[in-house]
């Protein structure tokens, strides 16, 4: 693989910027049937909670134009089984693993981070703050700067020093920049933007909500413009904070769009349901897109859309053969 696509998320160095989005790559075993997971920049796990959860009843998903509306209820095996069964397997695959954590209270997030502290092989932690805060009438942490910051602070305090902590934010808030600032002040080393947007569909056949959970999270290419805007705004306010862009990445050009907006990496979510090979494909297409634009290094493209028109990034000279490592 060429050096061109190397990237960093704070202290975490990645061979390439293409990750899986939390909740969309299964345990990793399912995707490993289709490609070698070590080809990913990193594998982001489904959000792990303290207890096993069965999630919501079916139907949990409805298809919407260029999107999916899902209400899963955060199903998962719980941290115990995750540490025994899923994480060791992932680490064996030689892929960097970013563990996503979710909790119903600040304390639960802190406890989960503590459980990971002495587990070797965890490359990073992503804090999914789009969870209901049971101590505050079920209001989503992600909607309140102080609540989101409290969660990040608890995780940062318990996580192993040196392991980057990324805060994953919800887009449907009054001002995402305020929440991003609060999380970074609380110790987040980076941000993942964005989680799903709340939405709803009504079945014209049954005349009732299409999902058992009534409302659900909208994902897929339908939300990409929202996600790109969030990345752009936050990068403008916090240019040195690394960002993972998420939301409707389905091609290399989609990934490039996020990078130009200010993301140092992208995560592929819903596209994996459509195409299990989307990860390696997006990477290949991104490499081609950079080459076609003669952009020497991915890092030179990060946030390029913020530069004045006419600014030219460092370019590969056409006669210079591409440097290959490995």
């Amino acid at each position, binding site marked *: 693989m060429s050096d061109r696509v190397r990237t960093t998320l704070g202290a975490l160095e990645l061979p390439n910027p293409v990750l899986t989005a939390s*909740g*969309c*790559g*299964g345990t990793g*075993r*399912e*995707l490993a*049937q*289709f490609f070698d997971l070590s080809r990913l920049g990193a594998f982001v796990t489904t*959000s792990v909670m303290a*207890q*096993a*959860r*069965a*999630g*919501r*009843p*079916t*139907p*949990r*998903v409805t*298809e919407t*134009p*260029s999107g*999916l509306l*899902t*209400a*899963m*209820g*955060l*199903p*998962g*095996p*719980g941290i115990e089984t995750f540490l025994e069964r899923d994480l060791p397997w992932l680490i064996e695959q030689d892929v960097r693993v970013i563990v996503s954590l979710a909790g119903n209270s600040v304390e639960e997030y802190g406890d989960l981070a503590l459980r990971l502290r002495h587990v070797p092989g965890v490359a990073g932690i992503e804090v*999914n703050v*789009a*969870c*209901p805060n*049971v101590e505050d*009438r*079920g209001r*989503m942490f992600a909607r309140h700067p102080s609540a989101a910051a409290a969660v990040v602070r608890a995780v940062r305090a318990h996580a192993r020093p040196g392991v980057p902590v990324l805060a994953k934010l919800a887009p449907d808030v009054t001002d995402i920049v305020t929440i991003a600032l609060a999380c970074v002040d609380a110790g987040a080393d980076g941000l993942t933007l964005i*989680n*799903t947007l*709340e*939405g709803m569909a009504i079945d014209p056949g049954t005349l009732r909500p299409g999902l058992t*959970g009534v*409302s*659900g*999270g909208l994902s*897929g*290419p339908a939300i990409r413009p929202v996600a790109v805007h969030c990345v752009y705004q936050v990068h403008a306010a916090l240019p040195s904070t690394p960002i993972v862009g998420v939301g409707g990445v389905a091609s290399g050009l989609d990934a490039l769009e996020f990078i130009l907006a200010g993301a140092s990496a992208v995560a592929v979510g*819903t*596209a*994996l*349901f*459509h*195409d*299990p*090979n989307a990860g390696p494909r997006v990477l290949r297409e991104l490499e081609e897109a950079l080459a076609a634009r003669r952009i020497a290094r991915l890092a030179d493209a990060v946030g390029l859309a913020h530069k004045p028109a006419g600014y030219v990034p460092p370019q590969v000279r056409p006669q210079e053969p591409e440097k290959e490592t490995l």
Partner: protein
Amino acid sequence: MSDTPVQTSATVLTVRQVQDYHAMTLVAPAVAERFRPGQFLALAIGGEHTSRLARRCFGVHEVKSDYGGTVEIVFADTEPGTAWLAGRRSRDQVDLLGPLGRPFRLPRDPVTCLLVGGGPGGAAVFALADTLLRRGCQIHFVLGGPHAKAVFGSRMAQRIGDSATVTTEDGSMGERGTVRDVLPRVLRETGADVVYGCGPTGLLRAVTQAAGEFGLPSQVSVEEFLQRTGACGTGVCMTCMLPVHGDDGVTRMVRACADGPVLRGDRVRWGDLGTIPFDALGAPRVLSVSEGGSQ
């Protein structure tokens, strides 16, 4: 690793109307070669730049070695996705994943098998019949549907089976009634050692119940449930969950696509499909609005 699924752009060979359904034959040698009865395919709908992201899952009716290896699916065009599929023509390309899921477990000895099919799902029992016949098993069919044109494969069943019983709710073919009505009699008359089922949930439930009454193992494909609930077919989206109880008596939510579609009938909690039973592992104690949010 020939037992791993592949993703391929398959060429449509033919699309034919068969009674109420469409039968589509796709050229996909790598899939045909790996396929074992009970496994399924997940097709992308709408072409390369589609706005429809969920895959559609279909059981395989028949695998042939023609044109290097073809697979045939049978489906009803009940929604825009399947209607798009029905509109494909010879030489069109369809993005296909397969073969996916766990196949039917096969008897080691040449035993007597009862194969029960309903609606388009019934098409998948014929791929199983092929394999069982090659192993020297006796096979008997029970096929059912609301009316004659909804019963798939009755003539083929008569041709290849040791017996074939057809039921229709309106009496337009075979016996009037449902599969449930004839199963006990057919089980008695055929002396079947094992029962296989593929079709709507109600039919699978009846198959399990009848097999249980005769002390027989039942293996059923929850393909129809998967078609209704699934989005990926590969086990990553977790949208196709159904409750199954294990050896340890604990109920777990399993994926119809990756843990099935073939399940032991007696393990499935048929009455609780579409719910999270309160005693399932990880079931929420109280499903309040604050549980889960939008994820």
